[in-house]
């Protein structure tokens, strides 16, 4: 039972970390003017998602 809790906490921690990192990167992108659903390939889309180069 104890190992299950520790294992679950580790996995949950990793998952929360990944999700947190993704959300943080998306917020950062948003601040740069990129759309969260954009792959960030500004070279290809001329920064179309942000309209600011």
């Amino acid at each position, binding site marked *: 039972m104890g190992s299950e809790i520790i294992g679950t906490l580790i996995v949950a921690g990793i998952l929360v970390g990944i*999700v947190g990192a*993704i959300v943080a990167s998306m917020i950062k992108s948003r601040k740069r003017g990129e759309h*969260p*659903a954009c*792959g960030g390939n500004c*070279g*290809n889309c001329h920064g179309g998602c942000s*309209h600011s*180069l």
Partner: protein
Amino acid sequence: MGIRIALAGNPNCGKTTLFNALTGSNQFVGNWPGVTVEYKEGKYKSDKEVTIVDLPGIYSLSPYTLEEVVSRNYLIDERPDAIINVIDGTNIERNLYLTTQVVELGIPVVIAINMMDVVEKNGDKINTKKLAEEIGVPVVEISALKNRGLKEVVSAAVAAGKAALPQEPKHRFNGSVEHALAHIEELCLHNISDANIQRWYSIKLFERDEKIQEKLGLSKDVIDHIEQDITSCEKEMDDDAESIITGERYNYIGTIISGCVKKANRGMTISDKIDRIVTNRILALPIFAVVMFIVYYISVTTVGTYATDWANDGVFGDGWHLFAIGSKDYNDASEEFTGNQLIVDGYDLYVEENGTEPTGDFEYPVEDEETLKVDYETASLEDYAAAKAYLEKNEEPDPAEYGVWVPGVPVLVEKGLDALHCNDILKALILDGIVAGVGAVLGFVPQILVLFIFLAFLEACGYMARVAFIMDRIFRKFGLSGKSFIPMLIGSGCGIPGIMASRTIENDRDRKMTIMTTTFIPCGAKLPFIGMVAGAIFGGAPWVAPCAYFLGIFAIVVSGIMLKKTKLFAGDPAPFVMELPAYHWPTVSNVLRSMWERGWSFIKKAGTIILLSTIVIWFLTFFGFTSDGFRMLEEDEISSSILAKIGGAIAWIFAPLGFGNWEATVASFTGLVAKENIVGTLGIIYGASGDVYQTMANAFTSASGMAFLAFNLLCAPCFAAMGAIKREMNSAKWFWTAIGYQCIFAWVIGLICYQIGSLILAGSFGVGTVFGFLAIAVLIYGLFRRDKYKN
């Protein structure tokens, strides 16, 4: 102190290629005008003090197009330290027209004659030394593609910029014009702080450039005074001011060319010969259709499928044999085992159904893995005995015994979670949600990369430029401009740059219509969905993927014709000028880089927005209210999930289209976040019932599958693209008009696909069929009704 160097030149002369080579950037390079619609800055690789600015391609410094306005404003207002005027060496005469204007700006200029490798290959000769003397600016031979002369041209521009001594233009107009220019300068330009640009302003005022009059804030009296000078010159030269200037410039260019350029006397080039066939009035369209069919066939059905099967079944499935060693032996053994198993199961099924053992030959069902079609084969009692004996002696083959077996991601993740004794709910979230959803999307990466290689090749070799030319001929017949097809070409990678590219269309109505229809062309994000529908519902039929592309073109043409006949979009098509570049073999690095740029964008999305979406979708799919209250659901209970309730409430919208079930409904809606999400969502929902493809195949008929495909290809694009539409439309009314039109049009096409498809394939006729025919009638009326707005 930093130096800013602007790259100015005609469209498609190689500015962006030069920019990428100098700065190490990966800006998109296209073989058609309008690829660069805003200026871009980058630091010179060898000296970070030097900033390179890539300007949109222009033919002149007159403000007729958006590109000309952007480039001209930058050069006048920002005043870079130096200009590299990029000239296409194979079209030097036309390119020099801009040069004659650029040298009048009072900014140090260096001419870079690009594509010198092609010039030499053609046997042409350009005397650059003499050219430099004639124009009065340094001239450097370069080849941006082959990295030739790049250091020299930047060094010359840096030196010119640091010296800050603009060259005095050597060209002088006719005496009468010069007289008028001198008057204009004296009248209103002597106060301008930068004396070097006075001549350029005076020429523009002579040409009656209203934007310059406005910029200089000239009073009516001054404008009237200038008008007197212009009119008297026009009378003397018997032509209008703008034509006088243009004519004088071309005369000057003619004298330069005759002394500096020697063209080899050659007949038709290879490009000309190819174009005689490829752009032929009758053959052009069939050739385009065949080319695109081959592209999609190879990408989605053959090469792409092998790789995607490996990705789906291997990397995101059970696993794969390293370097395929042992794979064949294992497959043979597995097939033998499965064959015997089917006979024994068939025997048991016979006993179960008939309550007695067969006395002779019996039939047993065999399902085709690709088409999922169930056939019946016959086995004798001897076959049954042999099969039973085989199964008693042999166990199911273990792939690890036949070679180095690499377990798939789900297997590894599951093992890891088991080793950590992870909670079942968390384990289900990771395996059934994230791994299943993201894996379903990433599994299509090989297909996407193969498609992007082909598109990059077709763009870089010059064929896609011909397609714009071909489509212009066709579009013009329907009152559209070929310019409207450029955004659609660009949109085959991603819809956002396609929408952006519509800025180059001067006619506002045509521009709005192009924005509305650009996303009909399937972008890279829609490819996994096309591949999934083709594989699951149509048994991997090769015609499905090309059909999706041609459906996009059909939708654009039909929409264009219908909308042009309405008051909102009526009007003559905008003129479309483009030159066809010579065919050439693109470099491998350029093609691979273009592929990777687009592919990486797809992968990045899978790791961010798609991953987050799969978590939400998993939660909504596997949690719901039951008689026991709110709890996690078993796999056979997901029809009680939150997602099922939401989807079920709105599924009626799609009932006439044949996919009025909650699964397809929610997949269509999650596709608005990102189109790959359709695949991720179906991967989670249908994965809960076992094999995704099999469950999906059971949920759709061919007709409803085609309606599902058509609707999701043509309806509103992802939120990012919708944002681009909103920005480019710059009006809430127009934005909603565009989204509304796309959704209604997609729904109508879906209705026709399902209702008429069901009538043809299954012979079913009902009220829906009548509405299907009605929808066709409306489309035909929209296409062929009289255009009362046509001049």
